[in-house]
């Protein structure tokens, strides 16, 4: 199956490229990434909890970066398997800069097998596009942050809001009892 697309990131190309090859950044940006460990030069072992809506699965696999030409190109090779099936593939990422905007073009060929391919074939491409969009949105935030700044925490704001609303709720619940 071919997967391709283009994303525009409002950040400098060198910064985007640096983020794209930084395992700590990747671990934060890849949707559902639970673990990303370095196993060699530009080679990593990963655990992903990936999925869309009610359909979710745990995948483990290997990621390798090849043909690295900063700041414009690299090739990513992945293979993984999990309960819902397996996937194996490679893709090329090309980065171009245009008026301070980095345009990332990605094109890959992925083979998917197992249960997910048998029953979910019609949705795999959509799911891949959705996850790519999530990934590049998170990556954009990473690349925009100044180098000395702590990395943006994608869930931090939501967590803070949840904590705050929890406190407020408790506060409001307490009030009628005290009066």
């Amino acid at each position: 199956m071919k997967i391709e697309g283009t994303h525009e990131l409002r950040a400098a190309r060198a910064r985007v490229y640096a983020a794209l090859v930084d395992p700590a950044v990747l671990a934060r940006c890849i949707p559902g990434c639970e673990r990303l460990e370095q196993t060699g030069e530009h080679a990593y072992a990963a655990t992903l909890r990936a999925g869309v809506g009610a359909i979710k699965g745990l995948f483990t696999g290997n990621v390798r970066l090849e043909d690295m030409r900063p700041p414009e190109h690299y090739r990513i090779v992945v293979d993984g398997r999990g309960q819902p099936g397996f996937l194996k593939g490679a893709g090329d990422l090309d980065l171009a800069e245009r008026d301070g905007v980095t345009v990332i073009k990605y094109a890959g060929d992925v083979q998917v097998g197992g249960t997910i391919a048998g029953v979910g074939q019609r949705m795999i491409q959509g799911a891949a596009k959705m996850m790519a969009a999530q990934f590049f949105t998170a990556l954009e935030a990473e690349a925009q942050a100044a180098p000395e700044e702590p990395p943006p925490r994608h869930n931090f704001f939501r967590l803070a809001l949840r904590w705050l609303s929890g406190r407020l709720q408790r506060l409001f619940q307490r009030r009628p009892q005290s009066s």
Partner: protein
Amino acid sequence: MIPAQFDYVVPSSLDEAVALLAQHQDEAKILAGGHSLIPAMKLRLAQPQLLIDIGRLKDLTYVREEDGQLRIGALTTHYELESSARLRDLCPLLAACAGSIGDVQVRNKGTIGGSLAHADPAADWPAAVLALDAELVAASANGERTIKATDFFVDMLTTALQPGEILREIRVPLAAARTSQAYLKMPHPASGFAVVGVAVNLARQGDACQAVAVGITGVAAKAYRAAGVEQALTGGALDEQTIANASAHAADNVDLNDDLFASADYRRHLAQVYTRRAIAEAAKR
């Protein structure tokens, strides 16, 4: 084909169901008719820890007219909607859409609310509720809110429903419903899902098109309103040529699905053809 272990509760009211959902959030899934969730669980593509079975809340099964709206309980089955004489009279699009879903077993158990909340990109209902400008009522522990159909479908299998919310009711404005309607689909030969499904809701003024809404499913990651077709047809004559010209816009500005059964180009072609046929059929009524 044996699901992973899960807990199971049967709430006795919607209030109890939303309270349970608020308590368990991400670990829990709502079970309605079970014709999407159970197969996914059997294949272990979905492994919720808790099922909250609202399927027995009979007070969520109804079709009634109220405040100029057609109100449909979320647990009304496809079969109940397909076989309602009142509905065929009031809003034939809904009845036709219900009758085109899957097979008789699916229609007997599957529910309109379950299908909409699951938001399968090839489900039939999304096209119909979009074309009818329906509103969807979501209940949660914090009360209720109404979501427009056009805001409801966010992406593949993703809706505007928040983690603690349950879809309770579908509301169709009757003024919009009393028009010329049609639902036409090309079903996948094995699954019955729509490769392309087109819902048309047309208001005529003599031989001209006063207003038209076109909802299309199966073509993209989510069902959508074909704005290009609507613009091209509104105010125009309902003749063969005008309809064909307008239908050419059926898949404009859409990222088309592409799978083993139908390539993106073939889907675009199907969307145009089925849109043309569906509008022509609606115009005859």
